[in-house]
């Protein structure tokens, strides 16, 4: 029996696990252990010198999965150097003495159905295409529902009256989502939980602080890699707006690019790779719509975002809004981040009082 594994990104291991375990009946899906500081240590040890941090996280998780006897690892590709991850990781793992295959499902940032079909046949030659389509439909819906609920939580978690009520309910929801069998059941549970979330009591003052988070996609979606930035912001009673999520990347990005380009044509004319152009447009949006501050996060050496940073700086200075830049590496200290966040929060409070 072959065993499949995939690296973590936020809570999205639940839909991915759902999809893989339903398509392939004869294979076992291994749940990767949660990312800890040991994972990043393992990843850093075997990575090349100036690689971006997601490579280190995913490599660390892959090694941990291989120690649980996984045979096939799944990796995604992207528009920047993200697409090179899979071949190099396979080479590194081979040199370490593991026997495994790394499959890159998306290459060059565009999902190609023919290519995916070819790769899935490598895992199980007799898999049913119709079943795969049906279950991927449910998975995408699940991702959409999770993203909608996450957006609601982000706006309200800072103002909850009973501490931990949002987080507990979310954990419950994730457990029920992982046991779902068909689309009807999924929709029913989603509606039930959405109602429950709306019933949680919050106290939202009118003069609350609002912050937008923009930046590189992996760092923004994997909470361990940004040192639980959103949780720390919630402790300061701040409303958070975040744009990037998996549903956006899969279905909205291509449509919205033209809109973004029109909206911020003073600042960029061409696509700048990965999410850089999107982030510039979002920065302008946040400045124009009454947000108090912007936090830009990225992993260190993320080339597209580095290109966008001077332009974001320029936008912020024309609208007179504060921006905080974070560049996360494997050696970043958590206390340093806390101090900077605290200072940023104090500054925002003082600006608000004026």
């Amino acid at each position, binding site marked *: 029996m072959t065993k499949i594994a995939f690296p973590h990104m936020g809570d999205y291991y639940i839909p991915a696990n759902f999809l893989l375990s339903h398509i392939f009946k004869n294979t076992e899906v291994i749940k990767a252990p949660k990312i800890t500081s040991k994972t990043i240590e393992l990843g850093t040890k075997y990575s090349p*010198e100036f690689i971006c941090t997601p490579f280190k996280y995913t490599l660390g998780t892959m090694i941990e999965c291989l120690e649980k006897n996984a045979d096939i690892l799944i990796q995604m590709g992207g528009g*920047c*150097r993200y697409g*090179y991850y899979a071949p190099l990781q396979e*080479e590194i793992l081979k040199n370490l003495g593991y026997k495994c295959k790394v499959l890159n499902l998306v290459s060059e940032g565009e999902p190609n159905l023919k290519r995916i079909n070819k790769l899935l046949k490598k895992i199980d030659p007799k898999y049913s295409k119709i079943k795969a389509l049906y279950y991927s439909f449910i998975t995408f819906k699940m991702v959409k529902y999770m993203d909608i609920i996450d957006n609601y939580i982000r706006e309200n978690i800072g103002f909850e009256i009973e501490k931990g009520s949002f987080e507990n309910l979310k954990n419950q929801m994730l457990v029920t989502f992982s046991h779902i069998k068909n689309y009807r059941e999924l929709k029913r549970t989603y509606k039930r939980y959405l109602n429950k979330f709306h019933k949680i009591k919050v106290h939202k003052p009118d003069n609350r602080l609002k912050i937008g988070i923009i930046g590189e996609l992996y760092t923004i979606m994997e909470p361990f890699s940004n040192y639980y930035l959103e949780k720390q912001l919630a402790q300061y009673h701040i409303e958070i707006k975040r744009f990037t999520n998996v549903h956006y990347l899969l279905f909205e990005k291509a449509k919205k690019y033209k809109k973004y380009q029109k909206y911020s044509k003073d600042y*960029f*004319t061409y*696509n700048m790779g990965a999410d850089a152009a999107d982030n510039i447009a979002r920065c302008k949006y946040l400045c124009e719509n009454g947000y108090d501050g912007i936090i830009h996060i990225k992993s260190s*050496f993320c080339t597209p975002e580095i290109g966008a940073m*001077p332009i974001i700086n320029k936008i912020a200075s024309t609208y007179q809004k504060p921006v905080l830049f974070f560049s996360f590496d494997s050696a970043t200290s958590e206390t340093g981040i806390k101090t900077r966040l605290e200072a940023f929060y104090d500054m925002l409070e003082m600006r608000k009082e004026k």
Partner: protein
Amino acid sequence: MSTVGIPRSLFYYYYSNIWKDFLDYLKIPYVISPKTNQDILNRGMKISNDEMCLSLKNYLGHIDYLKDKCDFILVPRISNFKKDNQTCTNFWAAYDIVKNLFDINVLHYNINLEKGKTLKKGLYKIGKQLNKKHHAIKKAYKYAIIKEKKRIKQNHIINLNKLKVAKTKILIVSHPYNLYDEMLGKDIIKYLIKNNIEIIYTDKFNPKITNNLSKKNFKDLYFKYSKDNLGAIAYCEDKIDGIIFLSSFPCAPDSLANEIAMRKIKKPYLNLVIDDSSSFTGLETRLESFLDMLGGPIND
């Protein structure tokens, strides 16, 4: 008459000859920034973001030098040469970064062969922006392109002949904008020539041959300039004695493509990374020991 400024960095090493011939034929005056010196590099470091790659910092320094010496500055944007032939994302963003950081007139064109934006269209656009007539531009373009084709053919022949020489041969795997730059890579070339070593350049092979060969080492490669480099390695691996990898500090494509090449080749190699604070003495020691190891003429 308006003068055009050409920064001697990044795109210059790919298109300088075409630009010069084209502008010469149209009788448009142009200024080329001087060879990189410490002053230009410092200017670039001041303006740029501290995490940008050294080559881009250098480029911004050149533009800063040129900004009050001419009316237009030529900054192209290169996205891809057909499918699976991307360039680095810094090449995509260079135009927008320059436009936002400096308050200057930018002369630009876009190369995106997937959407039919070719070099020809780009040069026509530039000619029109400089108020030249259509038939003059057409002649100038033909003149420039024919000359360039001859030059490239000559380079191919010279590089192939170098492979047959009896001296110690070293392949330098690098991007031309790092290798030929006065501050970044020129010292290394000078040192190797002084020690009587035949240098073979990766960018002077025929890309039609090397790009296909690159699949031997790396299957899913989609950066055009990495394809040139790795293809050249595959083409002449058994004809050379050693390989030097040369890259600027946080170079995105090189960090992955070179790493894979290093794991697959069987020849001795040296990996040099140029930093903004690195001195040549440090590099010299490493080069010397590498040549010692190859058993070059330095041993005699």
